[in-house]
């Protein structure tokens, strides 16, 4: 399907109101039609889609646990657990009990605000990062127990986001220090080391890197930054899968000129559309160009830019994992979460 040849439009499906402060992050449950959002109002809201009316409503509010802004939330691969990272320095783990959610564990250790939390593909590890410049890896033990397995130092500033690779236990982090770091345990013994740093000298970003996202295959990655660009990277991961050692990430191309304010979020869909959300209140959608330039490598084109998608900065864009339709969730400083559908205009 060559999307560039069709007339596409991002249609607003529904506006989810309820948060009383900016919404920092939205996360789709991997298995059910459920969306989690977290906010500066210290709460997490769980939105569920009605199977009858197809409309979304707030099923429950997770409150009275975090005492400060909840900055990000992430579902476990099974969809049964939700991890929430907060400025109060803790990461809470919630279990979906059907009628309600119960906080089953609280991970403490970071010295100050926790910015992001991520589950690995098998759900056996969690990673968190903080303004304290460190990245922590937690082991998921049985009986609601979580143990700190590793404290990774290396970033020289506030770490904004952590993300596990979709198929391998390789951890990625991005920071206010303008770099992206890759952490790997070569002997698979839980001893993680920084095996690569993507900085300005390797065509990296020139200001704070806010987010990372992988394509479904895990051989490409997109990052976004305060330097107003998105960067695409690739690695020969088949090399890693066959045990030939670490395959470094290399820069493919830089997408610039599309946003004139900080790009806070980016997400790569399973059908290869990259979404971006920025401080210019706009959502950008990008696809890989069909014209393969064998000299310069792949390039990406703007599919569409949705101006004024929100009334204020967009902090998070997330594609739904659902194969049925191309749904996108966005979260903003205006306190709203919006659900969009990417449609072809006849």
């Amino acid at each position: 399907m060559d999307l560039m040849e069709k007339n596409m439009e991002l249609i607003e499906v529904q506006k989810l109101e309820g948060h009383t402060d900016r919404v920092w992050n939205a996360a789709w449950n991997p298995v059910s039609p459920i969306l989690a959002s977290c906010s500066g109002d210290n709460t997490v809201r769980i939105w569920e889609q009605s199977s009858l009316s197809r409309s979304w409503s707030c099923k429950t509010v997770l409150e009275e646990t975090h005492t400060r802004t909840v900055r990000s939330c992430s579902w476990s691969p099974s969809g049964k657990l939700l991890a929430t990272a907060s400025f109060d320095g803790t990461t809470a783990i919630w279990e979906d009990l059907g009628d309600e959610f119960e906080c089953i564990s609280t991970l403490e250790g970071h010295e100050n605000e926790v910015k992001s939390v991520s589950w690995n593909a098998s759900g056996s590890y969690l990673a968190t990062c903080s303004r304290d410049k460190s990245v922590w890896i937690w082991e998921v033990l049985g009986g609601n127990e979580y143990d700190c397995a590793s404290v990774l130092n290396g970033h020289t500033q506030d770490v904004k986001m952590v993300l596990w690779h979709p198929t391998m236990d390789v951890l990625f982090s991005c920071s206010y220090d303008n770099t992206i770091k890759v952490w790997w345990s070569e002997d698979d013994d839980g001893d993680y080391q920084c095996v690569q740093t993507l900085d300005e000298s390797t065509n990296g970003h020139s200001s704070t890197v806010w987010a990372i996202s992988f394509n479904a295959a895990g051989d490409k990655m997109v990052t976004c930054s305060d330097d107003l660009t998105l960067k695409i990277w690739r690695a020969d991961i088949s090399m890693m899968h066959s045990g030939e050692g670490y395959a470094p990430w290399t820069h493919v191309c830089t997408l610039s000129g599309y946003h004139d304010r900080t790009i806070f979020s980016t997400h790569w869909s399973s059908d290869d559309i990259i979404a971006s959300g920025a401080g210019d209140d706009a959502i950008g959608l990008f696809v890989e160009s069909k014209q393969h330039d064998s000299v310069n490598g792949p390039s990406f084109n703007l599919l569409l830019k949705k101006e004024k998608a929100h009334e204020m900065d967009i902090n998070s864009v997330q594609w739904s994992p659902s194969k049925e339709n191309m749904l996108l969730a966005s979260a903003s400083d205006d306190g709203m979460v919006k659900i969009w559908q990417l449609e072809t205009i006849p």
Partner: protein
Amino acid sequence: MVSGLINENPIVYEIKERRDVRAYSSNTDELSVDAIDQLEVFDILFVRLSNSKALSHHIRDIKDPEHPYSLEQLKVLTEDSVEVDDTKSHVRVTFTPTVEHCSMATIIGLCVRVKLMRSLPSRYKIDIRVAPGTHATEAAVNKQLNDKERVAAALENPNLVEMVDECLSPSFE
């Protein structure tokens, strides 16, 4: 008095005369009521939003964290400090710390940001920076002042909020 002030002897300047609030509001033929201009941001006069309270809410009147003078009196902020583009909903404030190594620079910048956030419509994008060449760690200060997440976290610190509120409170009651 208290030893260890960053700037023991600030230079205090004479401040320019204020525009009469009422005279401003009657000039609707010259200035569009909805447009926000440089002087307005400087004064934070919003005739349509506020009344007599406006007089006490000026960024020019933000108090220096260390001395009983306003940022205008210390020439930390002047009218030229403010660049406004109302159609783009963008404002940039450039301030001049009194001393090159002024560690109060981040507090001052934060006060200006908070004042503007509280006074301008939410559609506004606000950039704050120190005047180029006036601070030893200019890039570092500017980066912190413009990192939305860092500002949000800082404003959840009650001690910092108290300090900011003190600087933003009117000098007279």
